């Protein structure tokens, strides 16, 4: 657990720093939420609400990465989920029928889960490199989404309860946040209360050894990609509900990069093995906050990328023991704390 805490320390520090910056320019109501007409709002709550889809995707991505894999198709799957639901709803005469909403959501989730499973199968059973296997759907996926919407942007009536998925609230807490957090808890329990987490890390750490130990490596791999697809689909639904429309082309564009970024900021290595769901969550909030910070401190939109680069760089360096040691060398002269072990001595 302490190692866990150590992992999370640096991302948390960066997050705090970002928040402080914002508070110092926009005052405390950046962070303190206030309730107006029965729903929490305020800058930070908005950030969390907007980050919900990214969080969902990043969580799925964390599991995939734990198996030494990667999923580039999440952005496209996001679009597909959104497209299916919205199209089905606007095609119906009464856009508010509960039955319709549920079947639309169900259909979207089933399809995206199937897509995820397909990715998993390509990786586990056909032995195709994850990046290629998922690249295929990254390319074709948006095509499929556009096919569903016929290239248009289906707009769901604001009156349709479907939009509640993105705009509604539960006990004043915006639904997207609730859903994302529930997913976080669910996955945490699923992986840590059962042995799934350990088996994942084992498969990611040494596939052959895992096979010889009798682990159902392939089954697990497929399962993980399936979950990732499902998360992406759910994210798409929330995004679409929030806007009341599905943009097949731009919905979740490049979100795969942000998701992977969040995962790594959260301390999970792309080489597979140990994974940290909570860290991922923090990574997501950092990214979300960052985008607001840029606007709040009044940088022009040209600055967005540059600022993002700087923050990512800082987090990456802070997380590196070697860097910290190098920076702190002048300060600690006492031969106390044993230096951390390095497998591949980097000197």
């Amino acid at each position: 657990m302490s190692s866990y805490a150590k992992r999370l320390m640096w991302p948390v520090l960066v997050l705090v720093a970002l928040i402080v910056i914002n508070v110092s320019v926009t005052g405390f109501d950046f962070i303190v939420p206030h309730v107006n007409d029965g729903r929490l709002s305020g800058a930070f709550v908005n950030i969390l609400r907007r980050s919900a889809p990214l969080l969902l995707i990043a969580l799925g991505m964390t599991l995939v990465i734990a198996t030494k894999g990667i999923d580039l198709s999440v952005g496209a799957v996001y679009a597909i989920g959104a497209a299916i639901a919205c199209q089905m709803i606007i095609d119906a005469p009464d856009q508010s029928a509960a039955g319709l909403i549920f079947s639309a959501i169900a259909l979207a989730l089933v399809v995206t889960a199937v897509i995820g499973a397909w990715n998993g199968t390509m990786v586990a059973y056909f032995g195709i490199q994850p990046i290629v296997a998922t690249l295929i759907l990254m390319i074709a996926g948006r095509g499929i989404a556009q096919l569903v919407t016929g290239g248009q942007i289906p707009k769901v009536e604001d009156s349709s309860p479907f939009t509640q998925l993105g705009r509604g609230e539960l006990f004043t807490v915006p639904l997207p946040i609730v859903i994302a957090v529930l997913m976080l808890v669910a996955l945490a329990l699923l992986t840590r209360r059962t042995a799934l987490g350990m088996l994942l890390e084992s498969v990611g750490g040494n596939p052959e050894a895992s096979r010889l130990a009798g682990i159902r490596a392939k089954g697990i791999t497929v399962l993980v990609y399936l979950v990732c697809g499902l998360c992406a689909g759910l994210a798409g639904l929330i995004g679409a509900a929030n806007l009341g429309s599905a943009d097949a082309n731009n919905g979740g564009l490049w979100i795969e990069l942000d998701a992977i970024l969040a995962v790594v900021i959260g301390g999970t290595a792309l080489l597979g093995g140990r994974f940290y769901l909570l860290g991922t969550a923090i990574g997501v909030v950092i990214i979300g906050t960052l985008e607001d910070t840029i606007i709040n401190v009044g940088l022009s939109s040209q600055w967005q990328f540059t600022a993002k680069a700087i923050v990512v760089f800082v987090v990456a360096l802070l997380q590196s023991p070697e860097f910290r040691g190098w920076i702190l060398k002048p300060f600690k002269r006492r031969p106390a704390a044993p230096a951390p072990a390095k497998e591949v001595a980097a000197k």
Partner: protein
Amino acid sequence: MSTQTLTERPARSTLFDGVTRYIPIGATVALLLVLYLGGIASFPKFDSPQVVAKLFIDNAPLLIIAVGMTFVILSGGIDLSVGSVMAFSTMCCAWLTVDAGLSAPLVVGLVLAFGTLWGLGIGAVIHYFNVQPFIATLVGLFLFRGLTLQISDTDVSMRDIQFFHWGMEHLVEVGKIRTGGFWLPNLSFVAFAVVIVAFVVLHYTRFGRGVYAVGGSEQSALLMGLPVARTKIGVYAVSGFCAALAGVMAAMGTKSANPLANVGAELDAIAAVVIGGTLLTGGAGFVLGTVAGVMVWGLLNTLIAFQGDLSSWWARIAMGVLLLAFILLQRVLARSGEKRRT
């Protein structure tokens, strides 16, 4: 001491073994041919030599960054910054010559130097600070896209700088396209040169073999006393240089700089490399495979252009399906030579 000598034949018969290493690339090339012949069968004018020539005109920059990417991936790393570095280089070419009025050759020199230095820098960060390549280079992806947009958020023309006209001058011109001729500009040959140099370096120099060794097992390479640091930093320098060079080639290709150019080029490059049979985990692959990968990439696009009646979405789906078919076939062919034990 014992007189008997121990023989152990390798797990797979020697002859076959020599071949297996070439199976992925062999499969790629074979399928590439199939793709091409298929095109000829189904479209008029597809047999025009220009169809092939074009692959090396439009994809020259992609080919160059893909070659750089091959070095990085072989060493077990990855470089996401190439797309942005490329765009940034192009923009610098325009900015420094058109606005700042420096002499073009000087600017090109500066840009190439910059690319290499960036590679060295980020390589050092990756190696000495153990930062994951994905993240370190992702920084480059954001940073240089940002800087490019800050230099100019509109496209800039370099048409008046004579120097940049060199790239598109037809070095080879055989007949007219109408009459089944074809042509190739200088920059295609720059790309070829890059490929050849890369091939020689990877296969016939210590640095090149070191790249494979580090990709095979960094820990072992280190314990074998190989210069791991130099190798790891070197590959990123190579990739950075290639990205900058590709940027210059792009500048010559269009004589204009566009701040939003090459978004996602890094993925195209990675795809090309991996389609070419290089393992993302490092240690196995060929730069010639990368060439094949790039050609596949270009050929698929050409096929779709010739088909021409596909809506945006069907075009994308078709691309995906073709790619899928390709990967699966390649896999099936390669499976036969799979290693039994690791």
